């Protein structure tokens, strides 16, 4: 992690946070889209009406799709966030090789 002791470093940290956010939100969004499509191809959200807790009693299809999508997205966000956290919090020498060291 870079300590924000200069304006330049501060910008870098902000940028890293931005990229981390993209790395968390984007792949999980793709995964949620895929999971949602597969799940709702088999399950009609209206079938969930009487299957689950009372929460779903008045579920219409559109809400069902939206809730399902956000459910899958949140699972994906959790998974991606753990991945990014593990990569970012690793000691530098054990994390990914610096790009400049690799043969080109």
């Amino acid at each position, binding site marked *: 992690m870079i300590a924000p002791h200069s304006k330049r470093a501060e910008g870098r940290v902000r940028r890293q946070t931005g990229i981390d956010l993209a790395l968390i939100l984007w792949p999980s969004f793709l995964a949620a889209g895929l999971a949602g499509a597969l799940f709702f191809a088999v399950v009609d959200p209206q079938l969930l009406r009487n299957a689950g807790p009372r929460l779903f009693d008045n579920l219409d299809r559109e809400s069902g799709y939206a809730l399902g999508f956000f459910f899958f997205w949140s699972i994906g966000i959790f998974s991606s966030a753990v991945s990014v956290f593990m990569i970012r919090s690793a000691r530098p020498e054990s994390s990914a090789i610096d790009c400049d060291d690799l043969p*080109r």
Partner: protein
Amino acid sequence: MSAQDIARKPRKAPTLASVKPISSAPSFYAAAAKIYPREVQGRFASARRLTVFVLLGLFYGVAWLQWRGHQALLFDLPARKFHIFGLTLWPQDFFYMALLLIIAALSLFFFTALAGRLFCGYACPQTVWTELFLWIERWTEGPRARRMKLDEGPWTAEKVLRKSAKQAAWVTLACYTGFTFVGYFTPIRSIGSQLVHLSLGSWAIFWVFLYSLATYGNAGFLREQVCKYMCPYARFQSAMFDKDTLVISYDTVRGEPRGARRRGSDPKAQGLGDCIDCTLCVQVCPTGIDIRKGLQYECIACAACIDACDDVMDKMGSPRGLIRYTTEHAMSGKASRIARPRLFVYGFLLSAAASAIVYSLAVRTPLILDVIRDRNALYREVHGGLIENIYTIRIINEDDKAHAYRLEAAGLNSLQVVDPVGEIEVPAGSVSTVPVRLQASGDVAEGVHAITLSIKAEDVPHIARTEQTRFIGP
């Protein structure tokens, strides 16, 4: 990195590096400078302009197209039916959607192996919408130099006016894009009229807003960063590349050593190659790379640098093609092959998947029959020494016209359909649930028998389905 930075850097002789997911680009942590792609004219710029018009024209236009009384292309999620022109797909037909996705992926592999990142440079929604947003930026803020000056300068009335004009156009376009996108999943004419009457449902508003935001963010704000940091295809395309893949390359041998020279002077006498180091190829690059450093994964193969360089070569009186579409083999003086095993494999898989979908759609029966045995009673003895079993059948007419079906039972002597005896009418695209009574004579019905129930459309004999079930006797 600006052009000046590159010009100031000590020059190493660049090599045509093979594509690896590694680049000389700054690491993740470097602060990104805003890229101001310079406007470019030429063959490839015209080709891209054309594809932008065609693809966006299709996207915004097809949503409004009608086909036999319904929206021509509609993935109707609320009704759980997909309309693709004359074809209606039900959740049971998910197989076709999966096959379509496989075909899309295989096409991407095939064309990538053949001609590199054609998709990125011309057809990717990210490129297409970014191009459109850039046009708006040019109309409102002017060409590259003006935009850079405008951004550096103070907030004058003109700057405020130009920036707000740009934002207004961007937001309007993004909202319309979001609306059109949602229009492919909910009938666009109905949400259109709901929008006019301000009665749009809350989920529709939410999705329109989300996709507007995504369009604005991706095409207006993130742009090349989507390709650099978010696109997995950019990273794994190397798996589909080989030394015969068409890529955009700078001809190092011809270009180096680069340097400024007087027009009309002989570069050879000055010990120079054909590259005049005008850095125009860097200025036009939407991802801000220098193609002269070799192929990099940030390169979306938009060919803007080819157009820019060809123009310069024309002016200098040198032949075109210092930067050109070529292959690594051709660049190193070897022969390029188009026909190679990789292409045959991708081509074979692609045509197999395409034939599979064409064949299965051609022989598809737009009819589904589900048979459920009555769970309450195994059997019933009725007068006349007959045994009766009760079923519920579900007939799904997937066709876009109504049909009358006739039910038949077979597999056991004397087995008869007692109810329903007549025709079963099922309207177009509907599901009908029908109770069924079968009877068989008591002396043959003993035990459990495997029987079949079939329905057949009276008007179109090949629309028929047969399902297995059981007939149970004492």
